[in-house]
């Protein structure tokens, strides 16, 4: 901790100051080394030192939003992990998926979860969905230096907007670039990561506004299948090891992760459909 020796043993001033309700701003005072983007990096591009997490898709549905991610992390031409989980709840009503350098992404995601929870506890109220999206943008921006040296992280953020006037349209998606963002995706779907080109193309042809949560979950797995079909860094459903995409929803009831049995059933349906028509 930054504070020098204090014989009284009391918590340092930054803890008790009226200050900020942002956890990252608090960290920048007491433990800046815990913030990604605050570490000095040697010069040069070092993007190939760590595994990369790949494709995430998000789809708005009637009364919420669905986010799904494949389970592969790659390092060059090798598969670094077959069962990494890249889609997580950010808080009670929102989801975050990470693509890019896996280690930095996981750190950023954990920090974002604490950031939202911290604000909620200090202020006694949740941030608005736009407020959450803006906080995430500021955190991505903080990592810009590392991103330019190859350690980029680009998240996808989606959530249920509690203040939306029409609950059926309360699911919203925000995308980012390495310099921050956020950009709200008003088309109703988006994909990020190495397979995003193919997943986006699949979603463009198949997406319809007002899908049910179940249909949107199926569509998300279909899009990931298409991404895995054409992108080596994206993993398809692994029938032999029973590893299936992570599918999460955010609705008025909060976030929910589909059980392994549910995702297995969706993946089985998608794969058996492709046995007859490989192009979907």
């Amino acid at each position, binding site marked *: 901790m930054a504070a020098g020796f204090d014989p009284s043993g009391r918590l340092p001033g930054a803890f*008790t100051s009226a200050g900020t309700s942002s956890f990252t701003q608090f960290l920048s005072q007491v433990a800046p080394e815990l913030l990604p983007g605050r570490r000095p990096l040697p010069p040069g591009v070092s993007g190939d030192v760590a595994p990369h997490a790949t494709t995430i898709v998000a789809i708005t549905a009637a009364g919420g939003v669905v986010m799904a991610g494949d389970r592969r992390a790659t390092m060059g031409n090798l598969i670094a992990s077959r069962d990494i989980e890249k889609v*997580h709840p950010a808080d009670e009503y929102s989801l975050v998926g990470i693509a890019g350098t896996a280690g930095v992404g996981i750190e950023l995601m954990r920090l974002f979860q604490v950031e939202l929870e911290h604000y909620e*506890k200090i202020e006694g109220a949740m941030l608005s969905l736009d407020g959450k999206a803006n906080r995430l943008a500021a955190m991505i921006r903080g990592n810009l230096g590392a991103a330019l040296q190859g350690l980029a992280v680009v998240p996808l953020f989606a959530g249920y907007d509690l203040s939306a006037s029409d609950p059926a349209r309360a699911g919203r998606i925000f995308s980012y670039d390495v310099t921050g963002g956020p950009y709200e995706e008003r088309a109703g779907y988006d994909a990020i990561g190495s397979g995003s080109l193919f997943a986006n193309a699949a979603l463009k042809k198949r997406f319809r506004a007002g899908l049910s949560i179940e249909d949107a979950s199926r569509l998300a797995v279909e899009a990931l299948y298409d991404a895995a079909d054409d992108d080596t860094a994206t993993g398809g459903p692994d029938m032999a090891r029973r590893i299936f995409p992570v599918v999460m929803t955010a609705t008025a009831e*909060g976030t929910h992760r589909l059980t392994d049995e549910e995702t297995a059933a969706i993946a089985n349906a998608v794969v058996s459909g492709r046995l007859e028509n490989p192009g979907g």
Partner: protein
Amino acid sequence: MAMQFYTNIDQIMRDRSELARKGISRGRSAVTLTYAGGILFVAENLSSSLHKISEIYDRIGFAAVGRYNEFENLRRAGVRKADLDGLSYDRRDVTGLALANAYAQTLGAIFSDQQKPFEVEICVAEVGPTPAEDQIYRLAYDGSVNDEPGYMAMGGSAEAIANVLKGAHKSDMSLTDAVKLAVKALSSVGGDGGASRTIAANQLEVAILDRARRGRTFRRLIGPVLTNILDGNGGAAAAAAPKNGKEPTDDKAAEGTEGAAKPPAPGPDKPTSSAGSADLE
């Protein structure tokens, strides 16, 4: 700088204690007690937005009496410390004892170093897997810390309130019984000539740490949920808990409020996050 007159340290400490005690005894009281389904906090509070009870971390709650600005300052410090520890290590490594120690050091330092001590009394409670493993710590204005046996009262006439709790508290009581006992204890003092009085539901701040919940266990009982419990209709009330955007409630939250000591909800044991065990579901 002007030369200071010598004052006996004993005298200084006595004066500060007296000031703090007077300040605390003017305020309204709060009680904390264990029950079968978790830990219950009840405070008498005229405001519905300036809280005396709040969440610190997954299984840790905070209650305070005394000066609002002073305990709010400590509450923020506690949330910051808990979130910092949880990020640096793991969510399971954040404990009530560590927080109680930090508060004890801080209050002790303020009491001996500052002109004016904090006029606050604080309770830090951590809910365990069973009522026997619940921890309730009392922190006084001078930094002294006590491990309380399943229930505690603080604020003005704390002793009289604690006596009511002492006679009737059982760690396996239901939520409804626990709330009723707490309200009975709080209202046993303060009436005309030391008689008991009635406290309206909208002047009570009630919250629980729900033993059966995974992840964040803190939950406020507000509005119809609370009035139903006070009317003796606890089970149905908890099931009909309204969805409130400000308070994270979910279906799992409604369980375990009826009082039966259930093991943690059977839900998926796999953490929803591979990165931390940030279990936000």
